[in-house]
């Protein structure tokens, strides 16, 4: 309150020129007053407004934390009530019987299916996504690269149900040939062995392919950003030493982007683990533990929830919530890990991913 008058007063006092004397009282009289009244006004509303606004904005931040905590808490409460009614071991039982009288359910088969489909998706998507990211950042002409980056972003927005529809109605019939080929030549790997060749490939492998296509744009988008941040000086130094473009990428780009590649892959993994509808359209649920990924069998946690939900009541729904809690914890760990890697990297590179 005092400071404005103090600071504006000295100029009024220090006005030795006599010619301006008539103007000075006017200045000294009106302007500090105007300044004071409006300032004191605004600082009063300002203080209250500040308090309200700060409360609202920090409250929103806290609300976000509360939501996360509430998700964990409510899922846990329902999950405990389901698991206490369970007659099987939740972790090692494969079957999912929630309608019959001795309620028996477990996540052994569906967790395995989730992991297998995600592994297949990662194995297919990560190399290809790296290729596309490199293509956009280092191989394509600049104009085309920009347009491609744009297209990749758009493709990341295609809803999962559309991928699911495509997977079920287009990809499944077209996978028969691929499956037969894999079974014929790679049956010895055990993984690609088919118990009944020629069946409809509504299998974990097909799901993995669909998931790979779905997570491709995300992995590409993040790694592309990282690759574009590689210091030009590193690249030019490598080229000036006579490296070919590939050697430049191997010695300058990949080491710089390694943690970015890892975290992008983990973000993709998180998405693949939690994907529901694309899996639910392709697979028909079955609860057997089967490592032959071409066989039409297997379920994932998310797909199991979506396909069982309509028929479940009471404890059955709680059982699904218990499965959802497992999925929540897994994705939390995967995503949290990815973010920690990015954050650690950000500290020394100043990069933003």
């Amino acid at each position, binding site marked *: 309150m005092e400071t404005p008058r103090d600071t504006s007063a000295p100029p009024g006092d220090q006005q030795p020129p006599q010619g301006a004397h008539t103007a000075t009282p006017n200045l000294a009289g009106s302007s500090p007053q105007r300044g004071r009244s409006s*300032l004191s006004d605004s*600082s009063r509303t*300002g*203080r209250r*407004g*500040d308090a309200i*606004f*700060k409360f609202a*904005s920090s409250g*929103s931040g*806290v*609300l*976000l934390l509360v*939501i996360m905590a*509430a*998700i964990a808490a*409510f*899922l846990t409460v329902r999950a405990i009530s389901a698991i206490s009614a369970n007659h099987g071991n939740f972790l090692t039982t494969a079957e999912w019987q929630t309608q019959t009288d001795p309620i028996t359910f477990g996540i052994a088969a569906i967790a395995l299916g989730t992991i297998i489909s995600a592994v297949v998706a990662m194995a297919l998507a990560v190399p290809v996504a790296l*290729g*596309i990211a490199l*293509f956009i950042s280092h*191989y394509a002409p600049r104009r085309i690269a920009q347009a491609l980056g744009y297209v990749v*972003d*758009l493709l990341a*927005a*295609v*809803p*999962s*149900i*559309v991928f699911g*529809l*495509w997977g*079920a109605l287009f990809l499944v019939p*077209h996978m028969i040939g691929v499956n037969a080929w894999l079974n014929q030549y790679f049956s010895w790997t055990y993984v690609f062995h088919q118990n009944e060749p020629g069946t409809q490939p509504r299998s974990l492998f097909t799901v993995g392919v669909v998931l790979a*296509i779905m997570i*491709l744009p995300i992995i590409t988008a993040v790694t592309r950003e990282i690759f574009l941040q590689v210091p030009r000086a590193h690249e030019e130094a490598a080229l000036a030493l006579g490296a*070919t473009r*590939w*050697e430049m990428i191997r010695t300058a780009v990949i080491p710089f982007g390694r943690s970015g590649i890892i975290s992008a892959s983990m973000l993709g993994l*998180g*998405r693949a683990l*939690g994907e*529901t*509808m694309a899996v639910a359209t392709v697979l028909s649920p079955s609860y057997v533990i089967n490592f032959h990924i071409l066989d039409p069998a297997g379920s994932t946690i*998310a797909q199991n*929830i*979506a396909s069982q939900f309509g028929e479940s009541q009471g404890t059955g*729904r*709680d059982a*699904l*919530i218990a499965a*959802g809690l497992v*999925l*929540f914890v897994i*994705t939390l760990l*995967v995503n*949290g890990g990815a*973010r920690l890697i990015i*954050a650690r990297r950000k500290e020394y590179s100043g990069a*933003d991913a």
Partner: protein
Amino acid sequence: MSSLATSSRPLGSSLTERRLPRWMPAANLVLAVLLGLAIGAGFDLSSKLQWGLIAAILFVVIQYVTSAVVEGRRHAKNYLATSLVWVAFLLALLPLISVLWMTISKGIGVINANFLTHSMNGIAINQDGGGLYHALIGTLEQVALASLFAAPVGILTAVYLVEYGRGNKLSKAVSFFVDVMTGVPSIVAGLFILSFWIIILNMPFTGFAGALALAILMLPVVVRSTEEMLKLVPNELREASLALGVPKWLTITRVVLPTALGGIVTGVMLAIARIVGETAPILMLVFGADTINMNPFSNPQSSLPLYVWTEYGKGTDQSQARAWGGALVLIAVVMILNLVARGLARWKAPKGATR
């Protein structure tokens, strides 16, 4: 090392190493495609995909061999990497183009004025006709309700992160959990609302319940994009405003937020585009309906992605055609939202800035 030795030949002969002519990759590509066609036709392989794969592998091999013969191993490796990158790119484009092509070609035949203005009321599964008007209404209302909740909370959270909580413990925790929340599967968000809203509070299945789950999914996206935009606002603007004696909250609402408005709107629209396509929480919380229900606060509704799912599940030719139609409308909505948002971002972006 040997290749380095060969490259340091006497300067007199040539300043550069022996290189393949520029047209060589193109010629190799033509050769590989021709060979691929010949092999495909010769061995009578039914799948055109196999033809393409054979041609791609041949291209990589021919490219490697010619380069290794003429230029040496290092350059051959470089060509191999280049070819692989190109193959990866083309390989990835195939399914993505296929998805779009299938949706458009199969969906366009279904879409007409009747499809867009009628519900599925009284349409048997093996009957033509019917439409997705009820689903369109449901999607619009649920998404609007979700945005009504998620946009203000998200923007305020971002304001807190950037303007108030710079680097303190709470803001670090919020920031981390925003990132983690981005990865929460949509089905888990649905289960949370199910356990909290429907099982414990004993509320019915409504569009509003679905909107709550969508808001949870939308929130982190809004926070993240708004935060990025607020960080781009030059500090000089804040300092100038504060130096004029304007209180902080007015500085934020009158100076900072308007400056970043274009980017914030873009972020909100992209977040909307993300939740429009969510199926799983809608399936669990809104439950689906065949008739028009304008009120999101009572009785089940439908939504576009749920419509696609239920029509697919019916399994007849007619319903699958409707599913493709619904998918096309859904993709169109998402793409329009994206394009408008990005156009807005470009139009509103400060001159010379890359974002």
